[in-house]
Each structure stands twice: as C-alpha cells, then as structure tokens.
C-alpha cells in the first residue's frame, strides 16, 4: 500500500491546475451564461496534450496513467466542467475504444488526430428512447455488403457539433437484440448527417450538447470497431472507464466548491467573528472535507485498478456514484455557506451546483450505478 504520488503525477496535477487558473478561470462565467463553446481553451488544452493524455505515445498521445488523468480532471473540473467533459469524452469514451479495439488503419486515420487534439471525438449511444436502457437502440446500421446504411437519431451528444469523429452505436441484427449492435467510426461530415440545435442546459452550458440525425448515411465496412455485434460490449466497456473520468469531474466540482466555501468562511464575518468560527459552519466544512477525501480515494482506487490491468468496472461505478452524490451535497452546502452571495453568479458556487447535478445523470445515472454495483455484489 502506498499513498504517495510520483513526481510526475504531481507535475501533471500542477500543470492542470495552472492551466485551469490561467486559461479557464477568466471568462468561465460568461461562457457558461451565454453557452459559448470554449474554442480557444480547447485548442490550448490540445496543445498541452490533455485531450489525448491517456493514449499511448505510439499513437501521438501523452502515454499517461489513469491516476494522472484523475488528478488532471479534478483540477480542470474545479474551474470549468464544460471543458473537463470535452476532455473526458475524447479521452475515455472515444480514444480508449479506438486504441483498444481499432485496427492499425483506424488508429492511424482516426486515433492519432484525436490524441493530438487536432480533431475531437464524440460517443453516440443515447437515443430519445434509449438512455439508461442502452440495449434498446433504434438507430439501425443495415449491412449493404461493402458498407452499412445508418438511419436514426442520437440524443444528448457531448461534442455533438465540435466533433469530427463519431463512434456511433446502431442495431444491425435486431433479432439478436443487444448482441446485434455494432459500433461504427463515422466522419461527422458524411452526407446524410445533420446536427440539431444546441441544448439549452442547466449546467455545463458551454459544452456543445446536440442531437445528431442520420439519414441514409453510408459508413464503410472497415469503419466497424471490433467484431460484428461487439458494439454493446464496447459501449459498456468504454463507460466503465468513462465513469472514472466523470467521477473525477464530480470530485473536482466538489473540491472546487469546497475550496471557495472554505476561503469565504475565513473572510466573511457574522456576529463579530469569521463564520468558520461558528461551529455550525465549521462542521459543515468538516463534513465536506471528509466526503471529498473519500470520493478522491474511490476515484484513485478505480484508476489504480485500471492501471494495474485488473477489473475496474465495479470500482468505477462506486466512484461515479459516490463522487456525484458528494458533488451535489458539497456544492449545495457551499452555496449555503455563501448565503445570498452563493446565489449569484460572480461567486461561482451556484454554477458548480448546477454542474454537479449533471454528474448524477450522465454516463450512467446514480440509479444505474447502483444496479451495476449490486449486480457486482452477486458475482
């Protein structure tokens, strides 16, 4: 057992922290308020290599371990979760699957530009009637011999408009149910693809979430990821790792709100003393600190298991559940500690509270995590 980070881990954490403070903090409120996509910030994120940090150096990635990824995601999410989710989807949902299951040609053509951050990826699984129940895919990919013909609609797609490369899940053999689902790499500018309007969200408003429609879209056969019918399995495996990213994002949202609340409580006076010296506030902060630390251990444990090549699906579901619930609780308390100031945008905590809510919903709701965890108990 070793609770020490390596020198490299700390360097990555500091780099992410410096980047967040220097490049993300200025303008974060306006970008969120007006739902402005962080184009410049994502470009700089790519230059520093964060967008492909988990991809091996052979494919132009950073070659970093998952512990480093947790540390970087936490620091970036403390400040701007819209940017963090772009990074998380590209790294753990898109690049991971192509690196792990793609052919050399697919890696050369699609993975390398995404690892360099020159192109962004999106993961197209959710549908209007297939959210938590991802098995009931209505999007179809009909086998036409040398290509698939894709039709259907995908919902809630992070990077929906900014992405150049989509991983699309679609049903090829309906009779085989989820075993008939394929995962296809689709170039976003392929004829027949249209992107719906930007979703007007409660939080993470600067990330571009869209519906994506497919109307007789031809996808070459060589763009299938993995074997025929491997799509659903790929989706589930990708989400196992994705959950570490979102758990780390939730952790960052919680620790960002906590740090702001701690600072405010040391400055704000009421009844003749700083409010941190009132036990009711001090105990709130103590509870927040404990839960954040526990969430951090969950995230690091799941990351460590993944780095060791051990099964991590159960641990990542626990991390996602606990960190998301902690983010919601901690951000709500951070707003409470700030009082009226917490309810206005300038103090950031209301935004963090809105962002926290999404971590309980996307990449598997808290309820879905409980299904995954409870099923794991019986294994």
């Amino acid at each position, binding site marked *: 057992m070793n609770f020490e980070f390596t*020198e*490299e881990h*700390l*360097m*990555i954490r*500091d*780099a992410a922290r*410096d*980047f967040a403070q*220097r490049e993300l903090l200025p303008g974060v409120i306006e970008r969120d308020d007006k739902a402005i996509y962080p184009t410049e910030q994502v470009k700089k994120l790519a*230059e*520093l*290599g*964060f967008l*492909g*940090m988990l991809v091996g*150096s052979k494919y132009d*990635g*950073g*070659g*970093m371990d998952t512990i480093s990824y947790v540390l970087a995601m936490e620091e970036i999410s403390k400040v701007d979760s819209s940017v963090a989710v772009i990074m998380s989807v590209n790294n753990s949902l898109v690049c991971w699957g192509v690196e792990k299951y793609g052919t050399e040609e697919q890696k050369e053509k699609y993975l390398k530009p995404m690892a360099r951050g020159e192109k962004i990826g999106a993961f197209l699984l959710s549908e209007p009637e297939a959210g938590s129940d991802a098995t009931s895919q209505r999007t179809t990919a009909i086998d036409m011999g040398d290509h698939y013909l894709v039709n259907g609609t995908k919902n809630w797609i992070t990077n929906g408009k900014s992405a150049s490369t989509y991983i699309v899940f679609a049903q090829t053999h309906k009779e085989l149910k989820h075993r008939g689902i394929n995962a296809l790499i689709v170039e976003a500018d392929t004829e027949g693809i249209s992107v719906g309007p930007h979703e007007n969200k409660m939080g993470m408003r600067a990330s571009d979430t869209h519906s994506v429609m497919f109307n007789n879209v031809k996808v070459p056969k060589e763009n299938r990821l993995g074997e025929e019918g491997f799509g659903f399995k790929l989706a589930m495996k990708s989400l196992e790792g994705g959950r570490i990213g979102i758990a780390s994002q939730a952790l960052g949202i919680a620790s960002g709100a906590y740090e702001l609340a701690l600072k405010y409580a040391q400055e704000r006076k009421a009844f003749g003393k700083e409010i941190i010296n009132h036990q009711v506030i001090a105990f709130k902060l103590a509870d927040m600190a404990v839960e954040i630390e526990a969430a951090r251990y969950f995230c690091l444990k799941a990351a460590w298991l993944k780095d060791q090549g051990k099964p991590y699906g159960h641990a990542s579901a626990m991390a996602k559940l606990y960190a998301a619930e902690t983010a919601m609780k901690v951000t709500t308390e951070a707003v409470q500690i700030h009082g009226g100031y917490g309810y206005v945008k300038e103090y950031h905590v209301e935004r963090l509270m809105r962002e926290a809510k999404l971590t309980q919903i996307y990449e598997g709701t808290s309820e879905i995590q409980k299904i995954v965890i409870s099923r794991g108990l019986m294994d």
Partner: protein
Amino acid sequence: MKILVCISNVPDTTTKVKFKEDNTLLDDSGIQWIINPWDELALTRALELKEDAGNSVNEVCVINVGGSLTEATLRKALAIGADKAIRIDACPSDAYHVAGQIAEYLKENVYDLIFSGIESSDYNGSSVGAMLAEFMNYSGISSVTNVNLDDDIVVSRAIPGGKQMIKTETPFVAIVQKGIAKEPRIPSMRGIMMARKKPLEVIPAAELPVLTQTVKFELPQAKGTCKMIDPEHVEQLVELLKNEAKVL
C-alpha cells in the same frame, strides 16, 4: 550557442512561513516547492531563443545548488523544455556560496549566455547574478527585460521612466526582471514524458567557504484589524490618524 539558466528552488508563494530550531531555520514541512518565478521567466525566454530559427542557440541547460529535494523542480524545468539539468549537491548557504558553486561549474563548462533571476522569492538576496558575473569576469547586466540574439546581441533593461538598450558580447550574465517573457510555460504531457529521458546530472559541491550565518528569522507583525469609517465622518478618520496611528 549554449544558455545556462540558474534555477532557485523556492516555497510556493502562498506558503505559510514557519521557522524551527530557535527561529534559525525554515520549517520546510508541508511546503510545496516551485521554480523561482523570475527564473521561470528566464527559462521561458531561453527556450524562445532556442526555438527561434534565426539564431544559433542549440542548448538550454538549467542549474541549481541544492539538495535532492530540488530535483522535482529541476525535472519540471526539463518538462518545460530545458535540454539538461545540473544539480550541485550542496546546501545553498548564501548568495556568495551559490554564485561560487556555479562559477566553479562554469570554469569547466563553457556557456555563452547565463540567465539569473533578479532575485529569489524566498530570501530575496538579489545578488547571485552579479556575484557570478564578477567571479567569472563576465559582463553582468541587471534588470534585463529582453535579450535579442539577432546579428548583434542587444539587451534591453528597465530604467526609471524608460528602457536602455545595451550591445554586448558573449559570454555574459543577464540578470532578468519581469517582462523577459510574457508568462511562464505550463509543461505539456509530451514534455513531462520526455523529461524522464533527459539528463539530470548531480555533481559534488566545490570546497568553498561559507561566509555568513543566519542568527535568527523574525516574521512581520500580524496586520492589525481594519477599521471602517463611514464616508460622512471624515473627522473621525482624521482623529484616528492623528491620535491612534500617529501619522499626522
């Protein structure tokens, strides 16, 4: 052309400073160490000069006088882009000692341009660069805000109300001020990965005398509480400035 950047390993600027051993030594428990901010800007400028194809800089080396603790800071400098790092294995007692150690290294290893931050954010001695120039009999130019290595070597320095441009020859010591680079660089993932493979050489310290000894550190007195005066009661402010603060 080879550039040597002197790196001081200093506590993060938000550190709560404490002392130990009868207030004669900094208590370094829990301190996060960083590259001295002026040195970090110097390194950034050195790398810009190397990247500029118009000049002949082909190596940027960083050097530090310190214990093994400082290696994390040196590795960060490598991750930012330095080609190699030297640690002179000695406790940096004072500016004379540090400058002397670096000078010993320079006598055996030729560099054309030496960057030194104008001061370090811990002890703020502001002396290493000038002492180093003196030891080496190089020209030393202080308050440098730009170094241009085009056809002529022209160094800009900040002077009250303006700037002064100085033409010089190598080797020289540029004692740099803020403005030498826009902002320090954040190491990239690739840089962090490449830093693993770059050389970090540890060399034994030279036998040099330590001429000074810290007798005691004292922290400044805690700030008094701030009194807020209603803008409509200026007379109260005058009264307090006169009788309590005794500044009028």
